[in-house]
């Protein structure tokens, strides 16, 4: 492993190439650039800090042992890995909850009222995790990627590995669910 002492800032693809050649310094730079962003995405998808940390950790481990082929933007590629890790974790947790007979783990916050993070009432700032908790995995993914991260439909299709049309229909249905659930918030004058 070598320490990267380069003075000019390489772009993300160059960082990944250096990581593939064993540069720990390049990896640290990649974490600095994308760690917080990936954590926000992971937190939005999972709803709790512990799971979000685990997923981001696994994402960075996968990055070190993978090769970026340049078929998308680096950030899109990183989110693609993260989304897969998040889906795997969610499926594992669901199986575990079934085995435990419906006992909720720390990540379940869906039974709280949506405005619980800053106190009751429609004017309370909502907790995103609570807002999205009732959505299915696919619907949660498209809402996070579109509404939270501002990805285009094409980027979302790449990250999720589905056709663009699937992205659009999932987004329409997910928004429909949220519009129904948060009717009271949306009809304020």
């Amino acid at each position: 492993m070598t320490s990267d002492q380069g003075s000019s800032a390489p772009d993300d693809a160059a960082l990944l190439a250096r990581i593939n050649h064993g540069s720990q310094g390049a990896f640290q730079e990649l974490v600095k650039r994308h760690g917080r962003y990936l954590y926000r995405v992971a937190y939005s998808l999972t709803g709790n800090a512990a799971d979000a940390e685990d997923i981001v950790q696994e994402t960075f481990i996968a990055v070190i042992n993978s090769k970026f082929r340049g078929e998308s933007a680096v950030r899109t590629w990183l989110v693609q890995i993260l989304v897969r890790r998040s889906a795997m974790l969610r499926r594992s947790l669901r199986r575990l909850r079934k085995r435990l007979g419906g006992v909720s783990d720390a990540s379940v916050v869906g039974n709280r009222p949506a405005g619980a993070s800053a106190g009751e009432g429609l004017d309370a700032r909502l907790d995103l995790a609570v807002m999205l908790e009732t959505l299915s995995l696919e619907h949660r993914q498209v809402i996070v990627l579109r509404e939270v991260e501002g990805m285009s439909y094409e980027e979302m299709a790449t990250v999720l590995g589905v056709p663009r049309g699937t992205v659009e229909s999932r987004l329409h249905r997910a928004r429909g669910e949220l519009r129904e659930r948060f009717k009271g918030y949306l009809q304020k004058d």
Partner: protein
Amino acid sequence: MTCQRSSQVHAYHDGELDATRRAVVEAHLERCDECRRLLEELKELAALIGEAEVGEASGEAMARFEGAWGEARERGVMRIGAWLSGVAAALLVGALLTMPHGSGAAPVKPGLWEAMAVTPPAETQPEGNSDLVQVAQWMADDLSVGGRR
């Protein structure tokens, strides 16, 4: 939603339409109350989500992410070790199968093809794979009749 253009309203809201389609939807919005209401709700929903609290990574979390380097290397070494064990086992079997049985014929060394047959595809091989193939070949040589003491 009953209006057939409602899906286009979503794409319009997301800025995914080209200029021509955008103009078509805008003309439609002037006539369709349902779609105008949908657009308004999409904007409000986006604002609601945009204002929602999202978790931020702590300093400890960021340090943990940097520590992924060490963990990844450990997992990579374990994967190479497991792969080498598999190669060694396969070559042992190959050598035993090709060994002559006391006929006095010249000993047959496991050829390079045996080594190559158990070499994983290039894209999954760790760096320095040619060295590992060479090591595997040496192990095969040692296991051959000519290599025994």
